[in-house]
């Protein structure tokens, strides 16, 4: 069965919704969009599509190869579609959590977080090096389970399309039942924030239940507005720097690290890890913040 690419079909809607959010920002808060930041985000989005074309054949080949070893014949039934969508979202959660905890994966994903704005253009700020970071590997178990490769890729596309609209400050909170189950703008604002309370939380793609289940959920608080971006803000609108800065950082650290054990750790440990402990990780920032809170509470 041939299925369409949901992302390509959604592009006109993406453009119109970005435009609508810009007009809204014109009347609500002009700081919600910055033209140069918008250009960087959208250019990274275009580059992501181009990179996807280049690596798409290899991803498909890996999917078909994994499907050769399938455990079940799940076929094209409606329930297989539903199950595929849910399990693909679980695979996305695993990928996304790893993308924040392993520097090799973070080197690609950081691009998506590198804007200090949180708007629909930020949603399109996507990595160029996902294939190199082995992002596709997290979906291989689905092919081995027996889901058809084109079904999985279709569900993965739907998952990304869903995630577009939650990158906005224009929507506050949704009804409680929706906030309980689905990933929403409120939950995802927390994910993009660098406030110590919010760091490394809410990894969900479509269903927030994964975060609730695995202990990584944090609700957005009215008394703590999210501040967006990354710990070490880029301070540059360069498209190429946004796309490759973490890879360059890995290369430098790898080169200068003493011993192979440390070199390897610069690839697989969490972002910010350093062999001499001179840098901050999200864990150390959160621990210091908790200690300060405890001290203040005495």
């Amino acid at each position, binding site marked *: 069965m041939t299925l369409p690419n949901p992302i390509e079909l959604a592009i006109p809607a993406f453009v119109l919704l970005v*435009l609508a959010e*810009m007009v809204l920002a*014109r009347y609500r808060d002009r700081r919600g969009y910055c033209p140069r930041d918008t250009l960087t985000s*959208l*250019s990274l989005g*275009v580059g992501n*599509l181009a990179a996807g074309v280049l690596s798409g054949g290899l991803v498909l080949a890996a999917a078909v190869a994994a499907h050769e070893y399938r455990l079940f014949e799940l076929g094209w039934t409606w329930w297989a579609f539903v199950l595929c969508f849910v399990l693909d979202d679980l695979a996305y959660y695993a990928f996304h959590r790893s993308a924040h905890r392993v520097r090799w994966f973070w080197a690609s994903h950081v691009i998506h977080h590198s804007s200090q704005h949180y708007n629909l253009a930020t949603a399109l700020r996507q990595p160029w090096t996902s294939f190199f970071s082995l992002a596709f590997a997290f979906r291989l178990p689905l092919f081995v389970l027996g889901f058809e490769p084109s079904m999985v890729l279709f569900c993965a596309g739907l998952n990304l399309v869903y995630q577009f609209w939650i990158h906005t400050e224009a929507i506050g909170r949704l009804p409680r039942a929706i906030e309980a189950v689905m990933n929403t703008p409120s939950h995802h604002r927390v994910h993009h924030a660098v406030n110590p309370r919010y760091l490394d939380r809410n990894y969900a793609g479509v269903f927030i239940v994964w975060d609730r289940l695995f202990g990584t959920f944090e609700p957005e608080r009215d008394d703590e507005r999210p501040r967006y*971006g990354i710990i070490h803000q*880029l301070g540059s*609108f360069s498209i190429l720097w946004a796309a490759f800065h973490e890879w360059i950082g890995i290369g430098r650290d790898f080169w200068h690290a003493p011993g192979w054990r440390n070199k390897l750790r610069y690839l697989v440990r969490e972002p910010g890890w350093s062999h001499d402990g001179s840098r901050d990780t999200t864990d150390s920032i959160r621990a210091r913040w908790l200690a300060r809170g405890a001290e203040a509470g005495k």
Partner: protein
Amino acid sequence: MSALTLSGLIATALALAGIAWALGLGGRAALDRGRAMAEAEERLAGFAATEALVSEDGAAALVLGAHGELALVKAHGVELAVRRLSRFAPQPVAGGVRVPSGERMFGDVILKLSAAQCERLLRPSPESLP
């Protein structure tokens, strides 16, 4: 993806950024002493600001920490970006001082200051901010 599609997407990206500009979105962050100090403390782990020297145009600031360390704050569009300075090597420029951040992509930051402030800042090892 054809070359035509790619060209269309690039044109769309440029058009949307142009519309953002035409709508008057964005602007530039304006710094004052309090905001510069708060930003340095929020962004740099363990940094306790004691004093700040803000550029006359509000686009940048130098912040002194409790242990003598320095932080450089600059407007990055409507947002701010901060770096802890590992080396303070100010250079005189017309109407102010250029402070290298030490990172090529973050760039140098120019503080527009009075002549007296420039003179004090350019002294070797300033013990406090002018």
